[in-house]
């Protein structure tokens, strides 16, 4: 039974949601693209798990990385994962609102902190990889 019992018994016209609703407005389309990116984020997580499964076998590990299919997947996934990251970083100030007295902390600072973290982690990873290659 519906929770809401409309008080108006009069005839009314219900307009159905069109199937292509997400094509009717650019912002809806961009939203659906952001939703679609989760497929590639999930796909990349799966790829990482496959690498972890081969961690004791250097040849199989390298073979998976060099496989043409994995290259194609990476090229395809990169723009989607970048779009995922950037769009979610940019909306963090909506969920994380910090007040300093009566003033809101500038949303640009909150979103920017994500980018700083992203750069720091990326540089650290490259640095570790660099050292690992050097010692190999």
């Amino acid at each position, binding site marked *: 039974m519906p*929770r*809401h019992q409309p008080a108006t018994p009069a005839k*009314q016209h219900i*307009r159905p949601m069109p199937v292509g609703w997400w094509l009717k407005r650019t912002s*809806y389309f961009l939203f659906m693209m952001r939703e679609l990116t989760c497929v590639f984020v999930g796909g990349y997580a799966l790829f990482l798990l496959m690498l972890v499964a081969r961690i004791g076998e250097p040849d199989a590990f390298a073979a998976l990385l060099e496989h043409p299919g994995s290259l194609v997947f990476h090229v395809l996934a990169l723009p989607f994962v970048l779009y995922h990251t950037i769009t979610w970083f940019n909306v963090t100030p*909506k969920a994380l609102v910090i007040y300093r007295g009566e003033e809101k902390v500038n949303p640009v600072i909150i979103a920017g902190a994500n980018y700083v973290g992203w750069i720091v982690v990326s540089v650290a990873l490259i640095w570790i990889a660099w050292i690992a290659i050097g010692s190999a």
Partner: protein
Amino acid sequence: MAASNTTTSNAVVTMDVFRYEPDASELPRMQRYTVPFREDWVVLDALNHIKDEIDGTLSFRWSCRMGVCGSCGMMVNGEPRLTCNSFLRDYYPNPIRVEPLSYFPVIRDLIINLDHFLDKLEEVKAWLIPAEDRELSEGEYRQSPAQLAQYKQFSMCINCMLCYAACPAYGHHSEFIGPAALALAQRYNMDSRDGASDERADVIFSEEGIWDCTFVGECARVCPKNVDPASAIQQAKVEATKDFFKSVLVPWGKRQQPAESR
């Protein structure tokens, strides 16, 4: 184009208006009207011109015509707008399509059924419930400017429902409590004088509450009062998540049982 030229010119605007007359036909239709173009007219002025001069059967809601009452929300060229705030000159010379707010049932012409919305406002208890009743002699409930700043933005809502007409999550699932009612619930939860967030929790934290929101963000964009319901809902999601972890990880962190409803 200077205003003095256009008021004396014979410029006209074509208006395509959604008509639904349940007694005459089961199906809605679009009706075309031609109205004079005036530099200082808004869409609501054009609708009133139609009703006064061309076709008295056209029905629509309006009241203050100054962006305060929230009655005249309609779809203008597919965009949820306050028609008192939408100038003809921004559309001229293109035709203007006026339809009732999306996703709501239509009762007649441009008039939607807003019963569901009013029910939802009641369900989330969108009013101040003080933590403890005080005698009048004890004076007012005091609040600092910093405490006011926490919720002030969400208190600007005029219940115009443009955010619902912009929300595909509401379009797909009309049981969704929706942007405005959730933002108002959050407004009272964040008010230092209010003590009823536990009473609101069951409804707000339910599937039909904040978790139906997929964060499209359109509610914030179309809001004529910059309420940003999307932000209110995401902040409530953060609160709900913290609440969950507290109740699972900290033995004494369990949310109190809702008090007797008042």
